[in-house]
């Protein structure tokens, strides 16, 4: 059977679609794990959207190095500051990304890092304040299977 280039590309392109569909088993596992991590971090407290802003690219050129950052609106005084921020990659086989712990000496509760994303998914940033209140922000990042050449 003669496989035309067009057919080969379409077959290959199907893989892009696959990246977003994922597998049911993996999604279920990640959700359980994420729920557990969120419950542990928040102490069961309800999370409010706001105060924390997550910055992430809309499309990541490569899933192994995705730059993300966050800032939290807080006076960062001894009585009123951000204690920690937890990042979760909700679609990764292991959703935990990292937890960043701040002090009033931080001056500003913000950080930048580079993360691995296995596929298109939501990244969640959750902030815990010194008074225990919880805030959150979420962003969807599309991850492409691109990059020719080796």
């Amino acid at each position: 059977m003669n496989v035309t280039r067009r057919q080969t590309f379409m077959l290959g392109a199907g893989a892009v679609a696959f990246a977003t569909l994922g597998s049911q088993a993996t999604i279920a596992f990640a959700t359980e794990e994420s729920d557990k991590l969120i419950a542990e971090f928040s102490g069961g407290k309800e999370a409010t959207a706001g105060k924390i802003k997550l910055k992430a690219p809309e499309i990541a050129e490569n899933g192994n190095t995705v730059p993300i950052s966050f800032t939290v609106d807080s006076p960062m005084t001894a009585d009123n500051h951000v204690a920690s921020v937890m990042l979760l990659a909700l679609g990764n086989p292991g959703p935990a990304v990292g937890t960043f712990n701040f002090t009033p000496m931080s001056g500003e509760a913000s950080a930048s890092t580079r993360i691995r994303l296995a596929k298109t998914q939501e990244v969640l940033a959750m902030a815990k304040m010194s008074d225990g209140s919880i805030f959150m922000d979420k962003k969807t990042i599309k991850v492409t299977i691109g990059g020719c050449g080796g």
Partner: protein
Amino acid sequence: MGITTRFTKLTLATIGAFALSSSIALADADDNELVIEGMKMTTMVEGAEDGPVDEVYSGWRFRSEETQALETDDFENPAFSAVDRGKELWTTVTGSEGKSCASCHDKAEDTMKGVRASMPKWDKATSKPITLEQQINRCRKDRLGAEKIKFDNADMLAMTSYIGLQSRGMPVNVDTSGPMSEWAEKGKKIYYTRVGQLDMSCANCHEDNYGKRIRADHLSQGQINGFPTYRLKWNGLGSVHRRFKGCMKNIRAKPYKVGGDEFVALELYVASRGQGLSVETPAVRN
């Protein structure tokens, strides 16, 4: 019936995904300006009158904004751990002669300025063009009494990125005259020859379709002004020949040998296609 339906659904989903991605992403090279550590880089030059393209673009112009940003700052640029190592190796004694690069070449910042910008160069000893990696190995063997190392060995990449950095901002300037012209022609022939199961040549993607997408990758002109390059895909630096090899594998062709005549000729020709672009070594790409 079931399989056909599923394939059709996938095909529609894919077309949908492509339509989405084309509307978000630019189809051509973007207009962004590259400034690295305060130095403005030339990422576009007018093509030669009889040249293959009207405008010659650095690969930087085809990358996403986040990837582009990584190259603008020497701390953000993930290649610099290797550059630091290269700087260390420069003064490290290695081999039987008790010498280091610095023993002959003093400060790289002075003596290596412009070297990478004009590689590959003509080599009298072998009557062939010689790449930077091959020149380093020549020095290692003949002067340091040290073993040759592979093009993509971590120490070699540390050296080529450190030495390459000393040409950053300078225009690519390869000599294709005299004895080099035969090799440039050889490289040109390879560039335009279809090979492999997919029956494609370098030109099919990098000349005929640059700016378009192949699957999710935004095709560049395949210029090599930034090599050795830190590729997010490799999570590390890689040489020109490694990249050539990867492209050939993608089209299901048997790759030529790293450091062999074909890739050296191809490197010379491809470098000449980027004449005038600023050296960006070590560049960041996807």
